[in-house]
């Protein structure tokens, strides 16, 4: 996993609530057996008319050339529904490193963190402020300080992340490395029970 410390970037606004993982990556694209290449199908049915790559829907944010960057801003309860990690893979493959919302679904949050995509939960009011910004305005997300800053105004909020997860992100470790380093405890547990 890539090490993450500070991400400063413009963003894509997606002011929709309850974005479920079926929207992020529809089931028909789950037949792949590797983790790569999901980005081109990210939000597939919102992105193209009749599933046709030559007909992008002009009003969908990923198709609007004025937007770019590594941050996605979305309405509350982002990532609900299916546990498919393909949702996190498709966001990562498209180039997102941070998702900002006022609420995240549990399984998605874990899946994102396990792939080095940071879910940043902010208040409804802060989210609204970000939605009001222009397309060239930037945000700065600092993992170490647990802060998100609207650069143009300097307004800032802190966000929750466990110390453990923070260490993982900053060092590029994942949970499997950690679990494997605890093999002796696991074996002892098995013997005892």
């Amino acid at each position, binding site marked *: 996993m890539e090490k993450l410390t500070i991400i400063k970037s413009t963003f894509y606004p997606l002011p929709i609530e309850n974005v479920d993982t079926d*929207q992020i990556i529809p089931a028909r694209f789950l037949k792949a057996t590797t983790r790569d290449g999901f980005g081109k199908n990210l939000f597939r049915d919102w992105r193209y008319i009749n599933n046709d790559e030559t007909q992008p829907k002009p009003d969908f944010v990923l198709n609007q050339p004025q937007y770019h960057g590594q941050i996605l801003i979305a309405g509350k309860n982002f990532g609900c529904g*299916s546990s498919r990690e393909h949702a996190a893979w498709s966001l990562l493959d498209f180039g997102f490193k941070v998702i900002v919302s006022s*609420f995240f679904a549990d399984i998605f949050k874990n899946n994102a963190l396990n792939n080095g995509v940071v879910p940043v939960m902010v208040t409804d009011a802060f989210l609204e402020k970000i939605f009001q910004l222009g397309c060239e305005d930037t945000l700065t997300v600092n993992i170490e300080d647990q802060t998100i800053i609207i650069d143009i105004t300097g307004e800032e909020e802190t966000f929750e992340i466990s110390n453990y997860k923070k260490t993982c992100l900053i060092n590029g470790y994942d949970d499997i490395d950690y679990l494997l380093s605890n093999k002796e405890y696991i074996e002892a547990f098995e013997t005892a029970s």
Partner: protein
Amino acid sequence: MGTTLFEKIWDKHVVKTIPQGPSILYIDKHFIHEVTSPQAFSGIEKRGLKVYRPKQVVATADHNVPTINQHLPIKDALSRIQVQQLKDNCEKHDIELYGLGHPYQGIVHVIGPELGITQPGMTIVCGDSHTSTHGAFGSIAFGIGTSEVEMVFATQCLLQTKPKLLRFNIEGELNKGVVSKDIILYIISKITAAGGTGYFVEFAGSVIRNLSMEARMTICNMSIEMGARGGMIAPDETTFNYIKGRQFAPQGEEWERKLGEWKELKTDEDAVFDKEIDIDAADIQPMITYGTNPGLGIAINALIPATESIADEGERKNLVQALEYMGLHGGQTLLGTPVQHVFIGSCTNSRIEDLRLVAEVIKGKKKNANVQVMIVPGSQQVVAQVYAEGLDKIFIEAGFEIRQAGCSACLGMNEDKIPAGDYCVSTSNRNFEGRQGAGARTLLVSPLTAAAAAITGVITDVREIL
């Protein structure tokens, strides 16, 4: 202070806790399927590891399999490769696979309980959000992502933060025409699709105690649709009687020993939950959803909320978008709306009791000529039982199509898809945009309400034809 059912099981499975961090939780049973496992297998192989405890893993092929002609090679190349990879991976890692053609094959959350693999007190995971189903047996069961599947392969453990606990107490008498699917759709409509996030749920009360095991599974199955990590029900005689004698149930002395342990699995009187919600069964009517998340549900004879009546701007926008997608409008009734498809299946409602409910409603009747009705039993064993009980004759006579076991139109990954713009009255668990096929419009209901729509061709209050 007493402890909850959840805490009793959790505490027994904690290997180690990281200070101010998650715990290492030991996993007893790990179910896998073809769609969310391949990248996990390649992940551990890249690390040079083998599956650590293959005997604790059970595999089946369900999400991406055809539901007709399962004896023939799968036509779609990508699906065929995915199913073949599961087979190769299971062989390589010494994992028991109930693949296509095996008499135990079926939807992972149907076969686990049916084979007696799912037992009280266990920790159970699967790379599928509806793993919550297994909580009906008094186990901690939850869905995980593929990286977590890889963790369990590598160490039989997961890193988990202890969730908050929420209990629903459901008391009273159920109304006529109300079954367990209506109970859970009602609860989700009250608490919303995100209202349970961060919680693990226990369902309790006299209504739950009086339900059969299969009805309990329907309820726990949909806990995830309120955002909860999982749902569970304390095991009792109904649970023990269900498990006894099943293929992988404990036997003899082992059974007695286990039974003794299982009887201890209940929430103490003085245990404290982070939140409790009381539900009066009398308030629950047959339910239907009208929007694009499972929280947007109403009693079948109620009106869809008027969009102007929603104060919160985000919620209102959401509803407007949902109704536009669904081709419906605020303030209207759903009753009488013509439907083109009825889908009876999915890990929520594809067990024999669900199919018996359907058969009871339609016996001697014919489906409406404008509706296509598909019954997809949850497992090969359910299929066998349908034929053994003669339900097949009732279904065929009514003009229903009986398919082979799989997830099918629940997620529209194989060729069982609902065409764009069509309405599908469905016993599955998700009504998301495009869930049953791009542009498909899903209305979630109980098996009874699905059967009623099949007969009349329109959305119908089942109480009128019972």
